[in-house]
């Protein structure tokens, strides 16, 4: 068996990702998070008299608390494997990446473990978020004063 035949054999044996199913699951899970979020925002606005912006901040807070707690309890990893982008793209994915990195490196100590690795995955979101928005603000200021 030469190399190309071997590659072909590997390709036939590798399990195919069910792309259509993944996409539908991501759509439903992500959509449900938006839908439930909107319900929570309405409840906060009506029962506590908060403004819409404050309610959205509380919602982000609630989602982060929920995702961190579920990751720490060991449930969230299974959900992410099933729902993939449905849970990665909402704020829950951000909390999940920080929490799971912190838990994984806990045994290496506080400084070299948790401290150094906490933002291993989420760091790029913070970095590129800050860099892009900073330069976009500068660009806006240069264009419109």
């Amino acid at each position, binding site marked *: 068996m030469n190399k190309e035949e071997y590659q072909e054999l590997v390709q036939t044996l590798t399990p195919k990702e069910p792309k259509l199913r993944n996409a539908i699951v*991501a759509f439903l899970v992500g959509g449900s998070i938006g839908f439930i979020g909107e319900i929570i925002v309405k409840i906060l606005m009506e029962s506590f008299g908060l403004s819409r912006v404050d309610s959205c*901040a509380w919602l982000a807070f609630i989602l*982060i608390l929920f995702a961190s707690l579920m990751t*720490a309890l060991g449930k969230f990893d299974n959900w992410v494997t099933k729902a*993939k982008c449905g849970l990665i*793209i909402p704020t829950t994915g951000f909390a999940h990446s920080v929490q799971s990195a912190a838990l994984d490196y806990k045994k290496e100590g506080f400084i070299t473990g948790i401290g150094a690795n*906490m933002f291993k995955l989420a760091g790029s979101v913070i970095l*590129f978020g800050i860099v892009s928005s900073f330069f976009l603000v500068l660009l806006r200021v240069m264009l419109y004063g």
Partner: protein
Amino acid sequence: MIYFNAFLFAGVVCLICQVVLDNTKLTPGHITSSVTVIGALLSFFGIYDKIVLHCGAGATTLISNFGHMLYSSGIAGYEEAGILGLFTKLLCSSGVAIVGVVIFSFVFTLLFKAKD
């Protein structure tokens, strides 16, 4: 109507990201970073404010809202105190996400052990 819009917008963004994830070699890290930058870009063109108006929490729960919040608080800071305001106020409204994540992760890491 806003409930339906929230469902549709959040769902469609997740769907697009899932299709990109499955058909390219990009990792979830690439995708979340790009979505954040796209959020800041949409905010720059004034589109994200309109999306938030029509889709409510469907737009604010996504990670793209992080870029939107950074950009809008950067603009507000610049209008308030010039270039120094941009530096001091940039993280103003997105601080809830960063501080929340750090505090909860730290506390839960102390309380729980990693499951394998």
